[in-house]
């Protein structure tokens, strides 16, 4: 049974004049790592909101079709209930911290779920170490830099141990090292079985980890497949999605009549592929 299933799902926000999502059909199975990308305003955030029920329960509007999460129709469930299955990290970190210090923030979700206090303490310790939060524990949300807030927001969601992690540009405020680190963690959680749905504009950061890329434009899914297939497709340029530089080089060479044997997603991969080709 698929974990996430969009069946002909459409949505229009109250007051908007056009549909934010248009007849979306999308099936995501357990253990997948799906990257959702597309130009700004194409409906990525709306799609993610539909996974944990914020659309249509919190953001109201016209709704067509259904979203089924782990067998539950989101129309008939509540955000709070769905959130214990699908943990959501929001696009803007400054608004999603709800308590007065980081420790409380991490405890908030598990407390709501009725997790045993001793277990909560364990989880907090584990996550603090994983995401380097030691020196932030006592800080108030307002007293943190943008990147620090974003790390805490992710940590707070992970503390709930959700089956599905839905992350809306979780690295947008992070420096490259921290971004890499966080993405490594997400990837390792995925390898241990967590299903990941991640929105990202900078595909060079995630293309290697992802098992699948879903490309959206103007409320529709316009391409869906393996990273190495999607990224070489000309549709990316057409709708204004940036592809990794290494992949750009691959495409540039192809235009000039040089066909590399496989599609590189990172600088190292490109160098390796070229070496192999030259040395052969």
């Amino acid at each position, binding site marked *: 049974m698929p974990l996430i299933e969009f069946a002909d799902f459409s949505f229009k926000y109250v007051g908007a004049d056009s549909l934010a999502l248009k007849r979306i059909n999308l099936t995501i199975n357990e253990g997948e790592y799906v990257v959702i990308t597309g130009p700004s305003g194409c409906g990525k955030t709306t799609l993610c909101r539909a996974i944990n029920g914020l659309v249509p329960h919190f953001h109201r509007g016209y709704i067509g079709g259904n979203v089924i999460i782990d067998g539950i129709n989101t129309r008939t469930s509540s955000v709070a209930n769905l959130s214990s299955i699908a943990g959501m990290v929001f696009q803007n970190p400054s608004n999603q911290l709800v308590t007065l210090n980081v420790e409380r923030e991490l405890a908030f979700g598990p407390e709501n779920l009725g997790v045993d206090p001793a277990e909560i303490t364990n989880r907090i310790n584990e996550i603090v170490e994983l995401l380097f939060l030691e020196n932030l524990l006592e800080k108030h949300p307002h007293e943190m830099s943008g990147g620090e807030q974003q790390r805490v927001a992710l940590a707070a969601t992970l503390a709930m141990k959700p089956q599905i992690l839905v992350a809306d540009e979780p690295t947008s405020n*992070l420096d490259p090292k921290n971004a*890499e680190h966080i993405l490594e963690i997400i990837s390792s959680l995925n390898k241990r079985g967590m299903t990941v749905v991640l929105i990202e504009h900078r595909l060079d950061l995630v293309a290697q980890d992802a098992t699948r890329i879903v490309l959206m434009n103007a409320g529709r899914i316009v391409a869906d497949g393996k990273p190495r297939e999607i990224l070489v497709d000309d549709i990316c340029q057409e709708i204004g*999605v940036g592809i990794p530089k290494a992949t750009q080089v691959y495409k540039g060479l192809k235009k000039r009549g*040089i066909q590399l044997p496989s599609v590189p997603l990172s600088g190292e991969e490109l160098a390796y592929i070229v070496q192999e080709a030259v040395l052969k």
Partner: protein
Amino acid sequence: MIKIEDIHFKYEGVYTALRGVSIQIDQGERVAIVGTNGAGKTTLVKHMNGLLRPQRGHVFLKDRDTKHMSVAEIARTVGLVFQSPDHQLFLDSVEKEVVFGLRNLGYSAKEAEERCHNTLSRLGLEGFADRSPFTLSGGERKRVALASVLATEPKVLALDEPTIGQDAKQKKLLAELLSEMNDAGCTVVVVTHDIEFVVEFFPRTVAMSGGLIVGDGKTESLLSNEAIIDLSSLSAPQTTLAASALRKKFPEVSNRITSVSDLEEIIVRLVGGL
């Protein structure tokens, strides 16, 4: 244009954010500020327009100490776009938001409106004028924040993470607009984690870490300095990584490669040289 002399800053007198930062930015320069999370970048740019005042040290704007200038006064010269649009946007329509700053600077209603629409269309926001900023997508909101400052065409533009949430096309639109303004004499200072954006559009880079400036110079040479890359948690662009990996096998590959076309050229030569 802006001269900062040994400034120190602690939040609430406790959390040290800047511990002695000096930097000089000339008129018409394009400077990128990069560095670790919590390095003090935001704190530094907030000093440039007087929202924060140095607890030690001085900030000069065109040789005038800003100590005696109000933020509003500085704002006539330095426009700042905040890291989080939520901290910047407070009106209930995009148009009002953009016109607000223009009117404060003394533009007539008609002129303000004209400039507003001009800037909105340059940033791919045509058709959004009457929307409430709160109902926009993340990237759209960030662009409204940018538009509200870019429209005023300040002498100095300080942008905190302008590319957050932007796709490749929007980044390009933004870069074009910035380049144009820069050609017209505007000084552009950008805080960003987006290395590729830096490489493409900013000849000078300042790297920060732990409240200090750890590197300041030509972008190319800074990004090939491993110590600095390490200190300020940067990562080199893919093209540079590919080039340096190739150089290990093929010494003829130069170590100054940052653009896609340069790299293509090299590879064509390597492969063609068979």
